[in-house]
């Protein structure tokens, strides 16, 4: 198992290197001169040259990339063009918000989707199954940010139950924090819940015809125990893998959802930096996002192996 984890970490590092180079190279594609962008049209050639010198922009892109990577290893993501703040400090402030948003939404999605999946799988093709498939398709048919817009319209403006924007940390004021997270979390969770419910349903239907289910039924155990202990354990590995994949989509969807609810998370930071042409910040955020994704993948694989001995066996072979 340890060897398997080590191998996955090395693979992830390779992927991280390629992906971070993709980010670096793409942002260099940008037409125009970054020094000119920073200093405006009034700058003289000498001033521009001096700025390029001080930012290291006159070196080759490969040198710049490795320099940036070297700083990254020391936890330094460069400094923002804007107020001269370090990108690391900006990301450190934004990351907890995005992480909370992603984790709460994933948990909510699983809590909604798994009972839905079991209900549909009870009688495949039956009335409940058809109704619930309509429900899950309608969950997935609107992107998370559009759910968010609808929630602002209905719950914030019409019913004035929840605030439409702002962030309060749970360690400052748990109740207000819950109120500020409620709408964005539900908006993010709905499309994910729809997908997990559909995939979970077919996994449960497939498993229900296994011999061990017939045996458990013959033993006379209760329906609830059969479902939530025996079958859930058998389908947990594919569900965990799916949850890992969906978490990545959640992080992507969070970009627009954070904008709708003015949550100062990583996505919002990236969008704001885009409009300020603050490329070091975009670069830093994207790299942290990739690190998160790779970490989530590894965690999902370890959890899946832990939940299902069959996966563990396949992985350690």
């Amino acid at each position, binding site marked *: 198992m340890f060897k398997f984890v080590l191998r996955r970490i090395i693979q992830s590092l390779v992927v991280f290197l390629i992906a971070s180079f*993709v980010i670096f190279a793409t942002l260099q594609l940008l037409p125009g001169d970054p020094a000119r962008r920073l200093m405006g049209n009034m700058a003289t050639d000498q001033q521009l040259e001096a700025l390029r010198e001080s930012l290291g922009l006159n070196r080759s892109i490969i040198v710049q990339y490795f320099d940036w990577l070297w700083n990254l290893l020391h936890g330094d993501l460069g400094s923002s063009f804007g107020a001269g703040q370090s990108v690391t400090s900006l990301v450190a402030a934004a990351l907890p918000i995005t992480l909370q948003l992603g984790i709460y939404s994933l948990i909510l999605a699983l809590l909604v989707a798994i009972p839905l999946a079991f209900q549909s799988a009870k009688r495949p093709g039956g009335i409940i199954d058809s109704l619930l498939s309509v429900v899950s398709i309608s969950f997935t048919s609107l992107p998370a940010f559009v759910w968010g817009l609808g929630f602002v319209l209905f719950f914030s403006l019409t019913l004035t139950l929840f605030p439409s924007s702002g962030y309060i940390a749970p360690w400052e004021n748990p109740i207000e924090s819950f109120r500020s997270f409620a709408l964005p979390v539900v908006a993010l969770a709905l499309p994910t819940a729809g997908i997990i419910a559909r995939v979970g349903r077919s996994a449960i239907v497939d498993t229900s015809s296994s011999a061990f289910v017939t045996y458990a039924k013959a033993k006379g155990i209760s329906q609830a125990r059969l479902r939530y202990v025996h079958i859930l354990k058998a389908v947990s590995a594919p569900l965990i893998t799916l949850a890992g994949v969906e978490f990545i989509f959640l992080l992507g969807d969070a970009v627009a959802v954070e904008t709708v609810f003015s949550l100062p998370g990583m996505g919002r930071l990236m969008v704001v930096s885009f409009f300020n042409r603050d490329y070091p910040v975009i670069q830093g955020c994207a790299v942290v996002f990739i690190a998160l994704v790779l970490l989530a993948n590894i965690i999902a694989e370890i959890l899946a192996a832990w939940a299902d001995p069959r996966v563990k066996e396949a992985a350690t072979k």
Partner: protein
Amino acid sequence: MSIEPPSGVNRDRLETKIPSGRKFYFLRLLTIPERIAFAFLVILVLVVTLVPMFLPYTAEQQNFDDGLLLPPGSANHILGTDQLARDLLSRLLLGARVSLSIALGSVAIGLVVGAIIGITAGYRGGWMNTTLMRVMDSLQAFPTMVLALVIAAGLGPSYQSTVIAISVVMVPGFARVSRTLTLRERDKDYVLASRVAGAKGLRIATTQVMPNIWAPLAAQAAVAFAHAIPGEAALSFLGLGVQPPTPSWGNMMADGYAYISLSPWPIIAPAVALALTVASVSVFADGLQRISGEEH
């Protein structure tokens, strides 16, 4: 004169397997909800291509005499007007052209590039396979919107860069599916026969492998289309995609959000259009996947 199958071949089986001679025979294999979804999409395409020709307004025309943010059902404006007194129905339909053409274009580019990468990786194997698939892995390490945002930032926001951003996001999915399919076909007798006959890689890929993997790839394209539409909407909503005054469903929602406390309709119209379209595409895509035997 009809061509008789050679004797000894079971004619019934031949006919059920290949319901040839009729176009759209796949429609008969769809369930009723899938047919409804398909019908909706056909109607949508017809409406979006034909109706704007008969509309009295352009997407950018401001009708201040009629009024700002009119509700649906107003005189002259069936769906009402937006914050600049532009006709919402015209913007919705012309925006649909923009949104749907971006989705279609990016799926097409993603499909072609992804299939080339996937078939090459699958057919060649070895270091080519490892390199190409590692690059695909690293593209998939991005949350989709983050990759699209980086590309849009690199290229500057426009119609073209939206297409490029979404198609890059699509490539790994297509590459993976076509690689798996190619691996399955690669060692089959007909490919071997073609190789024995002296055909080289490119010829085998186009004349032998492609015809046998296109159906699941088409189903995958339908699934990707259902992701591309919200992708465009999100990018344009954030201001990173289609730029105003050109309407798209995404930037219409962004406009509407700024005036959400005054009138909800500029958001509701594109949101409903988006939801119906995505729902129909995904239901139809499910049917295609089932028919092509690639249901997951």
